[in-house]
């Protein structure tokens, strides 16, 4: 017989009180689990956010690096242009007196320019042919003397402008102001040829020759030499002399394509000016350069750590 039952010897006298204890312990553990889960969730959310911001950061850094590369390229280009411009000015200031047999040289035009233009009046094909020869000759010369000659040959352009046959003023409106400094009659053309200098001369070396076409008197042939080193009084009307620095440009406007040619020239010059101004603006902004350099160097440091 079990004595304990008689004596009520219960080794566990409060069995029912233990049950709530167990419940409490269970509820505590779930609370902890919940807390852990919450923490885990918030941590994962944080990690997710961090990843997102990091990827965004990476994208921005890449964009800035691209901008920096472009900036550097522009800066380099600008330096090149500046270094090119200075010898051009030097050369235009030097008087050309060695070959006085060329009448244009007496008026200050460089060698080779006048021959291409006086023969210009024979016919358009001839003119084109002579222009090509002129270019080839200049290319050959530029191989020997790359800096000055290649720069000079890049400055000649011819534009055909329709005009009234009764108009004898020999005026070509191109958005720049000009000063007429001479006029003469050539053997191959009954119409006189007028010579103009840019109104910003002598700081601007650009010159212009205007003559009525011998074949078609309703056209004015304007030959530009040099590149403007300034914007015209009305830049949007277009700088016909083209600041693009390309090789000799001949615009055949006789067959109605003159508008396209002018627009192309205008666009090129606009792009050139945009590039120059952008580069100069960026170089002037020291804050931007410093911030960019700091960002890029920071990025490089990070990459080197990882």
């Amino acid at each position, binding site marked *: 017989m079990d004595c304990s039952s008689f004596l009520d010897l219960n080794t566990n006298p409060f069995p029912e009180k233990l049950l709530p204890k167990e419940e409490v312990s269970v509820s505590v553990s779930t609370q902890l689990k919940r807390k852990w889960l919450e923490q885990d969730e918030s*941590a994962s959310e*944080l990690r997710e956010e961090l990843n997102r911001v990091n990827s*965004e950061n990476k994208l921005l850094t890449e964009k800035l690096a691209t*901008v920096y590369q472009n900036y550097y390229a522009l800066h380099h280009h600008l330096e090149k242009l500046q270094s090119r411009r200075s010898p051009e000015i030097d050369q235009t200031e030097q008087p050309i007196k060695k070959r006085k047999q060329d009448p244009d040289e007496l008026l200050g035009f460089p060698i080779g320019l006048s021959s291409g233009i006086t023969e210009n009046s024979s016919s358009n094909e001839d003119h084109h042919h002579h222009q090509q020869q002129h270019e080839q000759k200049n290319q050959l010369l530029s191989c020997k003397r790359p800096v000055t000659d290649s720069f000079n040959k890049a400055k000649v352009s011819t534009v055909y402008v329709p005009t009234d046959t009764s108009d004898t003023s020999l005026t070509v409106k191109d958005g720049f102001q000009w000063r007429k400094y001479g006029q003469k009659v050539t053997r191959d053309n009954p119409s006189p040829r007028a010579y103009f200098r840019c109104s910003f001369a002598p700081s601007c070396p650009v010159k212009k020759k205007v003559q009525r076409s011998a074949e078609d008197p309703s056209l004015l042939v304007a030959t530009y030499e040099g590149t403007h080193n300034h914007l015209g009084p009305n830049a*949007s009307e277009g700088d016909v002399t083209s600041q693009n620095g390309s090789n000799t440009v001949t615009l055949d406007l006789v067959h109605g394509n003159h508008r396209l040619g002018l627009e192309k020239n205008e666009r090129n010059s*606009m792009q050139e000016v945009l590039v120059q101004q952008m580069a100069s603006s960026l170089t002037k902004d020291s804050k931007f350069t410093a*911030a960019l350099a700091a*960002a890029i160097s920071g990025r490089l440091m990070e990459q080197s750590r990882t």
Partner: protein
Amino acid sequence: PPTSALVEELNRVSAENKKLSEMLTLMCDNYNVLRKQLV
């Protein structure tokens, strides 16, 4: 890593992000100013 460290890192990266965005905005502003001048 503990949550506080994550928060700290997130703040740092966000601040860097903001700086980068500001620099890009500045660049765009400069570009637009030039463009307006030319047009």
